[in-house]
């Protein structure tokens, strides 16, 4: 029963991801990326990871993509004269990515199929992830607070206009 849902979601996410690369206007790319993130959130829900489903929507769709949209509107990039690479560079890029895909696929091909049964496991619930996070991964959690502080100070410092040139 879950297989058709998986296929629909997978096709949607691949389509949206492709449109991020193909779309001409940056704003369209951002909107397709948001759609792609929503389909990935759907995959999390199918994998019974409710906590990550909520966090993914809040952090990616709610924070990161809004930041992207703000910057694109701020920079006024929605021009028709979007720079494009030369044909040779594009062909080289497509063939490189295709070769990378083939190599990764060849590594996966020999793996024996494992049936994924997520209906019974409650491993993605807030309770289990939280217990793991606050017991085993307490130290990285604290350090990530430091990382956020550093990022905030860095972003403010970089984003300021240099009024005084001292």
């Amino acid at each position, binding site marked *: 029963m*879950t297989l058709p849902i998986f296929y629909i979601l997978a096709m949607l996410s691949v389509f949206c991801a492709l449109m991020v690369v193909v779309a001409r206007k940056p704003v369209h790319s*951002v909107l397709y990326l948001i759609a792609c993130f929503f389909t990935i959130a759907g995959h*999390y829900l199918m994998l019974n990871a409710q906590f990550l489903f909520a966090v993914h929507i809040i952090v990616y769709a709610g924070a990161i993509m809004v930041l992207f949209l703000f910057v694109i509107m701020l920079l006024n990039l929605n021009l028709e004269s979007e*720079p494009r*690479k030369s044909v040779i560079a594009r062909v080289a890029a497509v063939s490189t*990515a295709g070769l990378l895909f083939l190599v990764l696929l060849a590594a996966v091909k020999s793996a024996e199929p494992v049936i994924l049964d997520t209906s019974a496991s409650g491993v993605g619930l807030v309770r289990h992830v939280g217990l793991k996070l606050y017991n085993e991964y307490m130290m990285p959690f604290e350090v990530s607070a430091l990382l956020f502080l550093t990022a905030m100070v860095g972003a403010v410092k970089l984003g300021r206009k240099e009024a005084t040139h001292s």
Partner: protein
Amino acid sequence: MQSLLVNHYIILATILFTIGVLGVLIRRNAIIVFMCIELMLNAVNLLLVTFSAMHNEAGGQVFVFFIMAVAAAEVAVGLAILVMIYRNVRSVDINRLNRIRW
């Protein structure tokens, strides 16, 4: 009736990762390159969640949580850098950002 396999998710994550690599290689707008990096991070996240569900182990999901935290911090700093570059160069075309090449 086939059932859902772990291999399906591995292939999906591979496709998404490859599209991200393609976007980084093919586009010249720095913001879109940045978005494709986010796409690659998400492909890896999806793979981590899949393996976490396969092994019935919450550790993988905790790591996805940390990756999201680092991605948020990275986006904040990276977009600040992009805005600063735009202020100086009046463009976010990565082919024009070659001053530190030599």
